[in-house]
């Protein structure tokens, strides 16, 4: 009897909670570090990016209006589901090369821990960044952080899982929704992450993941008038400047690319959250 033939998986996009192929019908070959065929991944187009923005916009009122407790629970749930697929992620990360099984395992563990860390922020960021302001007059005056809206994220090219989750989690934990361009070279963990998200009670459209060329898609997102913020962490230097210029058109909040290599295992701090938060200040007179 011949050896059983493997069932290969078709990799698609993740938009609005569904897994469509690219509208353009394009795909590209993902290979291992040794050049072996791993999979065909969808190559997202401008239209896919626009559909993803529409899905993120549609999801924004519900997600930003959800209680912080609820958002925190869902982030924790993502961590649970991700942990359940540990072996698959380890296999995908090692296939991409550069890391051994042990190190890949550590990265998946760190990813789970990162999600748990951010899950706890959902109901604390308001206390840390908000303030009751002692104005010189009979007014109740309170400032609180609020999500900026739809955020486009160019995920780092290296660190296909830990880096990816480290840029998505801070954006969504505070109530934003996002459109993410996954690492072009190593998109498989991103699609598997999409499957994790799809089964984590995360409302459809809160995270939308595109695979394909960041240099091709990112400028459309940077110039999109219904995108409120852009994280250029994974953009190359030239593309980042173009994107930043395009982002000026509707004054998007911009997180510039890092000056040097990022240590994704280090304490992330709160900067990734604050970049995509507004501060709302409410004044009300005090009297009887």
């Amino acid at each position, binding site marked *: 009897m011949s050896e059983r033939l493997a069932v290969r998986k078709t990799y698609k996009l993740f938009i609005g909670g569904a897994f469509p192929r690219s509208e353009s019908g394009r795909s590209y070959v993902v290979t291992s570090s040794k050049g072996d065929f791993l999979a065909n991944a969808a190559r997202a187009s401008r239209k896919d990016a626009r559909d993803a923005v529409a899905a993120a916009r549609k999801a924004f009122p519900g997600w930003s209006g959800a209680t912080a407790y609820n958002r925190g629970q869902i982030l924790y749930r993502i961590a649970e589901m991700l942990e359940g697929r540990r072996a698959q992620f380890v296999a995908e990360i090692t296939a991409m090369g550069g890391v051994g099984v042990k190190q890949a395992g550590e990265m998946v563990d760190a990813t789970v821990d990162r999600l748990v860390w951010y899950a706890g922020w959902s109901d604390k960021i308001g206390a*840390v*960044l908000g*303030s009751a*302001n*002692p*104005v*010189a*007059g009979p*007014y109740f*005056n309170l*400032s609180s952080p609020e999500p*900026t809206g739809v955020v486009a994220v160019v995920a780092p090219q290296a660190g296909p899982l830990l880096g990816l989750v480290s840029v998505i989690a801070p954006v969504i934990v505070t109530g934003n929704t996002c459109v993410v361009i996954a690492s072009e070279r190593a998109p498989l963990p991103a699609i598997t992450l999409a499957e994790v998200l799809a089964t984590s009670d995360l409302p459809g459209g809160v995270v939308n993941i595109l695979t394909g060329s960041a240099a091709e898609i990112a400028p459309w997102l940077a110039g999109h008038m219904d995108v*409120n913020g852009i994280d250029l962490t994974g953009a190359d*230097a030239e593309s*980042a*400047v173009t994107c*930043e*210029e395009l*982002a*000026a*058109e*509707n*004054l998007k*909040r911009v997180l*510039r690319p890092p*000056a040097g290599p990022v240590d994704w295992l280090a304490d992330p701090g709160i*900067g990734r959250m*604050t970049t995509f938060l*507004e*501060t*709302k*200040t*409410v*004044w*009300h*007179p005090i009297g009887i």
Partner: protein
Amino acid sequence: MFEYAPAPESRDIVDIRPSYGLFINGEWVEPQGEERHKTVNPATEEVLAEVAWAGEADVDRAVQAAAKAFPVWSAMPGAERAKYLFRIARIIQERARELAVLETLDNGKPIRESRDVDLPLVAAHFFYYAGWADKLSYAGFGPDPRPLGVAGQVIPWNFPLLMLAWKIAPALACGNTVVLKPAETTPLTALAFADICRQADLPPGVVNIVTGAGETGAALVDHPGVDKVAFTGSTEVGRLIARSLAGTRKKLTLELGGKAANIVFEDAPLDQAVEGIVNGIFFNQGHVCCAGSRLLVQESVAADLLEALKRRLGTLRLGDPLDKNTDIGAINSAEQLAKIRELSEAGEAEGAERWSPACPIPDRGYWFPPTLFTGVAQSHRIAREEIFGPVLSVLTFRTPAEAVEKANNTPYGLSAGVWTEKGSRMLWMASRLRAGVVWSNTFNRFDPTSPFGGYKESGYGREGGRHGLEAYLAV
């Protein structure tokens, strides 16, 4: 309407020099170029003084002075920096009357406002941020937050000295040094502030002031020696700055335009709402980025409210800004007046109904009567574009959801007003309005402890409060 005898403030208290140089490294210096510009009193068109027009070489000199002062100023113990800022605050209080008159002469705003609003807030900002200088480790940005370096700051003409205070006080408290460019039509109080820095013995180069127009501002913003850019002004210019800073490591904060909705529900205390609407749009001739320029009134009370509002507008006094009875002063410049006229004409042409109270207009100077448009549709230019003048557009709504929808139907998101006696409704509204400041049952309130700044195309970053420190620290 009662007759009042004029009550003019004496202008003898100010001493305006015929000509001003640039304030660089603690000295008055002459610009390298020959170009000079006259600043006029918009209420009389009288020339007040000639000011220098700084070119690239002058800006470079100012940035270098600031860069040279930075190591000294940033290394100084916070408590010492605080004392300088307290000194400045005290000098401003001592000279408040003089500065208020000077502001009114150069800007055209009523003395009642420069004296009772601008100057007290200017002093309060320096007091507030003085206190932060030695407490930065408690501000929530880590145990040892560092300053950024040289801050290039460009400010508008609507609140010349107040915007200077908003920019300079937090920058200095955090240990940065500053090159500030005041607006081309209102440089005089900034130049007076240079004198205050000398009076306070502030180390040379910590504050530098370069006068000029857009080109001077662009030279400052684009100067490679500038580490941080802060701009308050139009969204259009804000966009240009954001674009020109792309690919640099300069930190940027922008306070830009607005088209605020002032939303009046049927249960609102109407008399107070009328006062709030008047304050919202006619304060400072409507030259306010957060002005309540779109009145959204619930249909059931629209007729009553409009009648009361028109009656109230009939009592506003327009005229000599130095008269203590004056409510509405002069439009800041001929250019601005032309813009207000153009947009008002567009309002009529698009079918809205224009109304102004009988209002005598002085023969000289730049003036625009308080104006109200009814029958305004959301698509009208007067409902979409920032007019930056005493022009109010009135729209109506039926349900709270419709009010939210209409209020948020703008690319801007600086401020909003809500008038209702029902607390739960107010908080429901406040949470849905996409605006940086929501005033409920009040409008146009400012305080140094209270963060101010916009959502969407009204810019990014906050000024005021603990939040305002973030713009000037490496965080």
